[in-house]
């Protein structure tokens, strides 16, 4: 395997290509920060039951969508014009995936905000809110870790993502247990069912972080493998 950090002195035409690659990487990191902000804001909306925050999340998704489309178009142009191979090829295909994962993370923040908005007048359970806050804290750490691993080409950090996902999965599965005690109150139950969907959205954010880490590993090693396999959990990794 060639060292992915290896960068001999480029020729002029290739220098423009290198600059474009660097710019795309900066953009995807900015997109990651924007997507994380949206998730944090959406969950803060839940904690504060704040309609204004929900609106900000829904509007804020436009910025992430702009990043997504811009990055996608520029990657396609580089494929057409620069015929990337080797590390460049792996970098651009990884970036293409990471771009889509981050766009989906932002969409999940929007889903959380919309669900929160739809139940804003219903009675709430602080236990469930705390549960969701804990989950979102883990999911946000996972997104940050996966994009940090990308920035640093850090294989060790990338391979930690599946174990970071385990507590998130456990908390998601525990949501039903948190809902059952309040099922007698029909209005609160209606709210809690919405929160159950929110829990699933946050759990999915963790899955996207793991998928980003898989792309980082592919970039570094040149061999693609899934860290986890939902249909064959015993064969994972």
């Amino acid at each position: 395997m060639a060292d992915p950090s290896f960068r001999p002195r480029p020729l002029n035409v290739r220098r423009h290509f290198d600059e474009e690659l660097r710019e795309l990487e900066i953009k995807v990191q900015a997109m990651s920060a924007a997507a994380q902000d949206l998730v944090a804001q959406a969950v803060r909306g839940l904690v504060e039951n704040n309609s204004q925050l929900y609106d900000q999340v829904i509007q804020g998704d436009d910025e992430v969508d702009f990043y997504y489309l811009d990055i996608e178009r520029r990657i396609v142009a580089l494929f057409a014009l620069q015929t990337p191979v080797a590390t460049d090829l792996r970098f651009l295909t990884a970036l293409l995936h990471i771009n889509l994962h981050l766009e989906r993370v932002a969409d999940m923040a929007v889903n959380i905000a919309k669900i929160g908005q739809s139940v804003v007048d219903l009675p709430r359970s602080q236990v469930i809110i705390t549960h969701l806050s804990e989950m979102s804290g883990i999911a946000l750490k996972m997104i940050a870790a996966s994009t940090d691993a990308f920035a640093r080409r850090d294989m060790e950090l990338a391979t930690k993502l599946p174990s970071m996902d385990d507590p998130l999965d456990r908390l998601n599965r525990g949501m039903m247990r948190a809902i059952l005690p309040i099922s007698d109150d029909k209005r609160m139950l209606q709210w809690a069912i919405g929160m159950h969907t929110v829990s699933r959205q946050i759990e999915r954010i963790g899955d996207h972080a793991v998928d980003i880490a898989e792309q980082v590993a592919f970039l570094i090693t040149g061999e693609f493998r899934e860290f986890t396999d939902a249909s064959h959990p015993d064969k994972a990794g």
Partner: protein
Amino acid sequence: MSKVMKRSSEITLDIKPVPTGGTPDDRPESEPIFRVRDLGVRYGGLLAVRGVTADISRNQITAIIGPSGCGKSTLIRCFNRLNDLIPAASIEGQVLYHGVDLYGPAVDPVEVRRHIGMVFQKPNPFPKSIYENIAFGLRVNGMTDDIDARVEHALQGAALWDEVKGKLKSNALSLSGGQQQRLCIARALAVEPDVILMDEPASALDPVATSRIEDLMESLKEDYTILIVTHNMQQAARVSDMTAFLTVEVSDDGHRTGVLVEFAPTTELFTNPRDPRTEAYITGRFG
């Protein structure tokens, strides 16, 4: 006519029998057709290429890529002893063809070149008719039976028959560059070789003619083993199964020697090269 009237690989080479017995075509597909061991070429005592070791599989296309002066053409010419024609050239190491040392004392280089044909960068048809361009080589090689059928078979094999069947007596030089190159491929196929060497066969052609040559290579590998030297990395990526990357090492006194850096399945070499020199070359960062 059958797919191949009489493959030269079924014609006994005028050399000792291959160690494992039987004809080469009886061998398993996986057995290398060439085993190259520590091959070097000297011109006037100076090493032009050194230390090439590789196994070339049959019915595959093997591409040789690398910067100018790395010895790609010198290397490919070792496979049919074409370097013998250069008085100052000498060979070190071994090229085993179906287990037989191509440079062994009993081996006739002319016989070698009938088994291992070659197509060059610039189409070089004879200034004769299309028909004669094929028939001439057949006669020289004593393949005088059924010449008309052999000519047609060769032209069909080179995907040229439909374009020239009505004008076989026309001068070959009236053909387009791409057609001339396919005629040269037909000329190579006519004597029923086992291997076809191609030294930049499409570098003088436009993209349409290049595509036809590449399509042709894809179909020819069903029956032949192909080695191709190309400057066009995307062509190597498109057509080949295996790729060899050569580079140039420059000594303190300025002497340049070609070395084999990496030899790998083409997909692997273009997605995940093992050597940073390969990475630098194929990504265009070799300044």
